[in-house]
């Protein structure tokens, strides 16, 4: 049993970051915007961390879950349902879809899994446009239904709560048999199998968990932009940003994606001021640099340089 001192140390890093974000959001609406984006990225990256960091499965199609959440939100709100319940519904449907996609796609290994998940992003867009689903290319506008209810603070705090929730979830999974199984199958799929790990079941569970909060975040996004269409809510950029942030922060750690999201957004903001338009370019190169030089991310670097910080960097 760990004593109170250890527990406090372990979580203090996390608590500190969250407190900081709350404080920043209260300074001004400009800061609120930034905190919103940080939290948005944080939620989707932490979610991706479950399947990618623990399970070793690089889901290039992660952005699809956001889109699903956004569309479910829009469809329900148009029917008159409370927006906040619609967000939760978006998350649940997203997980359900993850289950359906997962039972098919999770049998594939390595590069084939990557190709398949990467292809789901344009595929879903084409399905919506081609099948004229939910308004097809034109989408659904939400001004009429939500205009007055818009509250940026509320949206940001929903993301904050989501992030805290997924943090707790990540900690729980990491210390649970599922966590051990996922890490084992990440390291060596076949040996995990002969050691008793039901890899298919574990992968599917991780996949479902990883889809929940991006679905909620999709609903938040829809609320913010008021117009849900394929171009705006299904964006490959989020897939790469999420992957980047997980790698940047420290894949497979709990605090990694949190740190990664903060660092990423700060850098992105700075770049926007001095080199507008070049953010993604520089980040593309940054990803390459990270993989070659610091594959364990910021957490890995800090753990190696500053041994005293180890207990904070969970």
């Amino acid at each position, binding site marked *: 049993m760990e004593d109170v001192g250890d527990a406090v140390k372990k979580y203090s890093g996390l608590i500190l970051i969250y407190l900081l974000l709350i404080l920043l959001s209260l300074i001004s609406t400009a800061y609120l915007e930034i905190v919103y984006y940080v939290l948005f990225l944080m939620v989707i990256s932490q979610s991706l961390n479950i399947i990618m960091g623990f399970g070793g499965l690089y889901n290039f199609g992660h952005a699809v879950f956001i889109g699903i959440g956004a569309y479910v939100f829009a469809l329900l709100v148009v029917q008159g349902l409370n927006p906040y319940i619609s967000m939760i519904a978006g998350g649940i449907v997203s997980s359900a879809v993850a289950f359906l996609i997962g039972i098919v796609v999770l049998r594939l290994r390595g590069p084939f899994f990557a190709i398949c998940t990467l292809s789901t992003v344009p595929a879903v867009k084409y399905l919506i446009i081609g099948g004229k689903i939910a308004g097809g290319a034109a989408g659904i506008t939400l001004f009429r239904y939500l205009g007055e209810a818009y509250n940026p603070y509320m949206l940001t705090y929903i993301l904050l709560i989501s992030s805290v929730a997924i943090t707790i979830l990540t900690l729980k999974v990491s210390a649970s048999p599922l966590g051990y199984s996922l890490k084992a199958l990440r390291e060596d799929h076949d040996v995990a199998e002969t050691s008793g790990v039901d890899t298919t079941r574990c992968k599917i569970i991780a996949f479902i968990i990883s889809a929940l909060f991006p679905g909620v975040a999709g609903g938040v996004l829809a609320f913010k932009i008021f117009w849900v269409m394929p171009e705006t809510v299904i964006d490959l950029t989020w897939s790469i940003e999420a992957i980047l942030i997980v790698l940047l922060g420290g894949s497979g750690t709990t605090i990694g994606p949190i740190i990664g999201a903060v660092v990423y957004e700060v850098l992105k903001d700075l770049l926007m001021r001095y080199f507008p338009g070049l953010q*993604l370019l520089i980040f593309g190169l940054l990803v390459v640099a990270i993989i070659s030089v610091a594959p364990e991310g910021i957490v890995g670097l800090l753990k190696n340089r500053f041994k005293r910080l180890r207990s904070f960097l969970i």
Partner: protein
Amino acid sequence: MFELVFQVLVYGVIIGAVYGLATMGLNLIWGVMRVVNFTHAELLTLGAYTAYWAWVLIGLNPIASIPLSALLGFVIGIFIFYIIIYRLLFSPDIHSTLVATFALGVALAELMKVLWTADYRGVPWALGVIKFSWFSIPITYVFTFISCILIIIIVYFILYRTYFGKSIRAVIWDSGAAAICGVNVKATLALGFALGSALAFIGGSLIVIYLPTGINPYMGHLYLLRCFVIAVVGGLGNPWGALAGGLVLGLLEQVSPIVLGYIPGVEPLSLTPFLSFLILIIVLLIMPEGILGRRR
């Protein structure tokens, strides 16, 4: 009815050939070094821009700009290989190259946007149309098809009649054995990647002919799905697999809109790519080695 079938077949084959050529690079690179080149779509786009600027600045039509595209693609391929790919080939994490090429692709797309803006551009190269009583086809399409065949023959020559080509095929088959036989594997990998890149550029230049106004930094997204379907269906490790896959997709894209047109309330042109995605999944599940791939 006969006219329809004929039209579908001809267009399918002609467009399919270009698709196949455009994807050959992807199959080749996978075959040689087991890397899925997620930058492929952006290399295609760069090829398209090469054709555009050749047209605007020098007045070269897309077919005439092929040597330029090939050269550019080759050089850029060598760069990418030595700066990025080579380091990651032996990393314990098999996903390194995937993420790196994906990130590079995103970076290149943004670079193009910064350099040339997101405006749609086009190469309006038209030479008129060959007309039969029941069938017509733009002359440029015919020339494109002929160029495709010529390039494919050249690639065949390179792969089967030159030392370089033979070392590529050796490395595809078994890199360890190739090394023992004195093949400089690293150089072969580099050249293989460069060749794949050159082919992507050429494909991009030729696709321009089918897209009178559609060149933009993000056009790669359109071809992402298509190229993967072609590559996987045809057989990833085999460059000729790309041609097979290309033909399949080319024909599918001609037939599917007609069939889907009978379903009310859908948009056949956008639903067709989704259909191809379903085919991708089915092939990956049942026959991942594709039509021409090596049987396990």
